[in-house]
């Protein structure tokens, strides 16, 4: 019996004869007793406002909590909202040559198994909408349902991605690589922020299930790294929902940066292989609908140690040069070598050179020029260099300056896309 069959059998036994279910609320958990009760209450309150007559099912996929999380969910949901519980193996299916551990801010190990369980139940029940909410959230309000659920139920949107107000340089990996590269590839101006809450249509849930992303190489990358890309590349009706400030228990800050980078960028490069036909022909980009209050840049964040970032770049230049020689085109390498001569305060990583660097890495990944995990991790010092450059360029200005630099970078990615497509064809 496959994993999906087991999940559906478990849920069906718990549900009995409930009739038609229209909305599925998925809550992946792992020892979230402290935060899960207000999360469930806010979700149910939000649903009663958005679609009071809809039949709703709350599914909790738990990774083996020892603090009674499932029982708290059952109590918090109350008699009006039927609940079903599934247990999944935390990361038990991940093994292979690439030892990247799927990471997530939710703190739930094997989070992709939880999502797979939700999508399975959503498909079997033919639901209209499926909302997935993290249980470690502290900033969730009932208004989130208005943003994540209503567009799916009433406007036929397939996917609502989360969008948060973040401190000035937060999410720089997303802003320097994931967002501009994805935008240039697939032509949609999604900010590619991840975690906390998503809204899916039933159709998209079935599409995810059918995609070859649950096993093999793709399964080594965290689910948050590819949810948005798959929805965009498949041509679904995508949108973003501004959810305010993200406050949650647990963080990825303690995790090694190179591992984070390998996860996020690796997923993107991996999907480029499968969606070549989609991105090769796409030019320019267009905005996507946004729900909730208008997006605004975040406030000033904590001070960032730029010197340490520049030192990281310079050490990479000194020690990883033989590896970069394999990955980068000679002209890109020349440009990067010249950056090593600049003083830390005057350090600037030009946007065009950065774009060329990322495209070279994508091509080297495609050509398997180097072991893929090594290739992805060797990008870390270059990324530190680019982030340091962004900070040095904008730290004296206003928060909007960062947005302006990111926008310029995105346009450079779009303008230089032929550099990638031409070389991709001949590799």
């Amino acid at each position, binding site marked *: 019996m496959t994993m999906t069959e087991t999940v559906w059998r478990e849920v069906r036994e718990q549900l009995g004869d409930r009739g038609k279910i229209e909305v599925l609320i998925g809550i992946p958990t792992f020892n979230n007793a402290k935060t899960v009760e207000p999360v469930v209450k806010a979700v149910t309150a939000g649903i009663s406002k958005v679609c009071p007559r809809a039949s709703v099912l709350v599914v909790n996929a738990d990774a083996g909590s020892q603090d009674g999380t499932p029982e708290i969910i059952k109590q918090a949901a109350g008699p009006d909202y039927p609940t079903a519980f599934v247990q999944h193996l935390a990361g038990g299916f991940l093994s292979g040559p690439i030892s990247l551990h799927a990471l997530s801010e939710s703190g739930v190990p094997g989070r992709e198994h939880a999502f797979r369980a939700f999508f399975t139940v959503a498909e079997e029940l033919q639901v209209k909408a499926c909302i997935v909410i993290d249980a470690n959230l502290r900033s969730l309000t009932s208004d989130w349902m208005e943003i994540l659920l209503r567009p799916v139920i009433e406007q036929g949107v397939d996917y609502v991605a989360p969008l948060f107000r973040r401190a000035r340089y937060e999410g720089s990996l997303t802003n320097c690589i994931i967002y501009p590269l994805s935008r240039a590839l697939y032509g949609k101006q999604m900010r590619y922020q991840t975690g906390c809450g998503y809204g899916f249509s039933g159709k998209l849930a079935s599409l995810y299930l059918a995609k070859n992303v649950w096993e093999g190489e793709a399964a080594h990358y965290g689910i948050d790294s590819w949810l948005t890309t798959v929805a965009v590349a498949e041509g679904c009706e995508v949108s973003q929902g501004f959810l305010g400030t993200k406050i949650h228990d647990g963080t990825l800050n303690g995790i090694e940066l190179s591992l984070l980078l390998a996860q996020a960028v690796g997923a993107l490069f991996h999907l480029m292989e499968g969606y070549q036909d989609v991105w090769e022909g796409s030019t320019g980009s267009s905005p996507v609908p946004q729900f909730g209050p208008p997006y605004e840049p975040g406030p000033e964040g904590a001070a960032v140690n730029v010197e340490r970032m520049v030192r990281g770049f310079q050490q*990479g230049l000194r020690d990883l040069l033989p590896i970069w020689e394999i990955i980068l085109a000679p002209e890109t390498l020349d440009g990067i070598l010249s950056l090593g001569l600049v003083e830390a305060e005057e350090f600037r990583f030009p946007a065009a050179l950065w774009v060329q660097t990322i495209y070279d890495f994508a091509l080297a990944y495609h050509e398997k020029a180097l072991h893929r995990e090594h290739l992805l991790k060797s990008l870390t010092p270059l990324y530190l260099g680019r982030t340091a450059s962004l900070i040095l360029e904008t730290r004296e200005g206003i928060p909007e300056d960062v947005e302006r630099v990111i926008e310029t970078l995105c346009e450079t990615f779009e303008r230089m896309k032929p550099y990638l497509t031409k070389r991709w064809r001949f590799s």
Partner: protein
Amino acid sequence: MSTLWQEAMLEAFHETSLRIAHLLPKLMALLTFLALGLAAGWLVKLFFLRVLRAVRFDALCERFGLGSSLAKTGTNQSPSHLIGRLSFWLVFLLFAFMGIDALDLRATANMMSLIIAFFPEMLAAVLLLFFGMLLANFIAEAALIATVNAQIQEARIIASFIRWGVLIFTAAMVLTQLGIAKEIVVAAFSIMFGGVMLALAIAVGLGGQTIARDVLEQRLRRRKVEKVEKDNISHI
């Protein structure tokens, strides 16, 4: 007198002719084996080159860092070409030994049976060497990237240590497999490994007690400070 001289001459001529007649087919056999060895070696080389090219062996070696390691040793040939050449010489030598065996010389008696008996050991040793080199490069590359990303200044030294450690271990295994000075290799390896560990223990535990304490303190303190610095922004 002349009859005796004639007889001696004829006998010597007869014996030499017989010896030559006896040796000629063997020489012919040697030449034939050499010619066959050249042809078979060339065919085997061609076969290996085709197969290795089909499975993109050079790209695979490049991915594991073997290509760059070969380049560092001054070899300007690709790994598939090297394997092709090796296979040519192996096949040619096999045929050459058959030819020498066919000469039926006392000095080379039983050589073929000895070589054939030694062949599996040699093959295992070659494979050990190949995979040892791959492993050494792979682990050293992973260590280099990890230490650079952790901003450890001694990244290259650490990676070199790891590469040479694995290579020395591989060399010891290869020599043991070939049965060359087995006891000496094992003893030398044990002494060297034990010596390095003992030296490190003495250096850290006794000789460099104060330095070690200072270094550890500095490192731990710096790490504490850096952790705060690292946690300043969330990258994703």
